[in-house]
């Protein structure tokens, strides 16, 4: 079932499949530090096609591949590739598939990974396509919640920031709607969750929208913070005013549950001040670290089917 499966969109996963990935990831946590002793992917080659810059995603995929014993094939700057000569994605994928056992792709155009998966004989993993899907991020977000809280059901999750353009929050909300979750969406009016996503998740779980974190912070088990980007606002003054209202403050934490976990897909700018890094609730660096075991589990599942 898993062997050679493409990982393109979180929407392609059933709840059972998500839970299976999370369970496998749990087994990989200790190996993420030491390397898997059996090097089960030692005969495999992972190609990383990053048509867009990325730090965490690329490095954690490469780290995951190495920890499993696999070789890595990739290009550095786009300038050194035939993409600048006008080669199409389809042609690039057809060539790279003959050099590798799995293709990990990040591309600025939405739907690029789906297209690549239709032409590649080897499995394709979407590592982010523009503002579209980024399924392994969602899986590591879910893994963080499950591991840090001990459960994914009967919890109260708040997602704050740019809910309109943020791809991670769209996929995460859809995935959360498979579980028994009370979801609170906290954003300025102009950056609310798109209606079609809201409609979709509201049929499955209880969702409430807020403009102020103060209204709900005391009830949350998870607070997922995202960055509000400057370029969404034509007026820099307006940006400062709006974004400032969605910065997390230490005063929020005084009201919050002690067991609250704070997450962020990173990179963060000002929305979480550095002094919060020392609070026990801050889990965003752990979250980034979990990218490795989750991606180790995914590579193992699709390359060996186990």
């Amino acid at each position, binding site marked *: 079932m898993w062997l050679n499966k493409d990982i393109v*969109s979180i*929407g392609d996963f059933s709840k059972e499949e998500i839970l299976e990935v999370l369970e496998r990831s749990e087994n990989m946590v200790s190996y993420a530090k030491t390397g898997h002793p059996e090097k089960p992917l030692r005969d495999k080659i992972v190609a990383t096609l990053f048509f867009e810059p990325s730090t965490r995603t690329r490095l954690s995929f490469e780290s995951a591949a190495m920890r499993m014993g696999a070789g890595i094939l990739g290009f550095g700057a786009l300038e050194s590739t035939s993409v600048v000569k*006008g080669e*199409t*994605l*389809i042609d690039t994928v057809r060539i790279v598939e003959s050099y590798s056992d799995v293709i990990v792709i990040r*591309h*600025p*155009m*939405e*739907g*690029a990974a*789906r*297209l690549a998966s239709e032409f590649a004989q080897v499995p394709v993993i979407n590592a982010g*396509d*523009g*503002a*579209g*899907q980024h399924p392994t991020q969602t899986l590591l977000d879910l893994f963080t919640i499950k591991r840090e809280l001990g459960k994914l059901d009967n919890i109260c999750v708040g997602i704050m920031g740019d809910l309109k353009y943020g791809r991670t929050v769209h996929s995460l909300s859809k995935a959360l709607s498979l579980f028994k979750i009370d979801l609170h969406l906290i954003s300025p009016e102009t950056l609310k969750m798109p209606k*079609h996503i809201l409609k979709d998740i509201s049929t499955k779980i209880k969702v409430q929208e807020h403009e102020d974190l103060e209204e709900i912070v005391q009830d949350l088990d998870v607070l997922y913070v995202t960055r509000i980007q400057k370029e969404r606002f034509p007026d820099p003054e307006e940006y400062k005013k709006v974004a400032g209202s969605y910065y997390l403050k230490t005063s929020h934490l005084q009201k919050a549950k002690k067991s609250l976990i704070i997450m962020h897909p990173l990179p963060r700018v000002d929305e979480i001040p550095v002094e919060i890094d020392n609070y026990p609730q801050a889990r965003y660096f752990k979250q980034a670290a979990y990218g490795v075991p989750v991606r180790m589990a995914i590579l193992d599942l699709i390359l060996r089917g186990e």
Partner: protein
Amino acid sequence: MEKEKTLKIEKIKKGTVIDHIPVGRALKVLKILNIEGDIGQTVSIAIHVKSQKLGLKDVIKIEERILDSSELNKIALIAGGATISIVEDYDIVNKFEVEIPNEFSGIIKCSNPKCITNSNERVKSRFVTVSKKPLILKCHYCEREMEGEEIEENII
């Protein structure tokens, strides 16, 4: 056929009758069929016609032309419920309602400018019908959903 008596336009000898077009949509149907100016055949259009089924409807009769499946799918997208009658020698030889396919490709383009189907890749657009009433289509590639006027504006 008795309903034809109430129409103000003549029966055709050979061609296609598009009936039960939601009222006011006939010109849009003509547009997607690329019928403008003199196409060398008789085209009759009736707008705001009384209908037992719809209250009011539009009707188009095109002589000497049989629509292909891509044209029928386009009509389904903008004039759901329209019926097609194929006429030969003044007789209807086939009659059916246009139906929105559950999946289709190439008829409309994705409204998302960042969608891979709007790049230089050699790939046709492809959509999945999420809901027929109201009509909501989802791009197979970028997963963006389209509805209402957005769909009409993007018919190829």
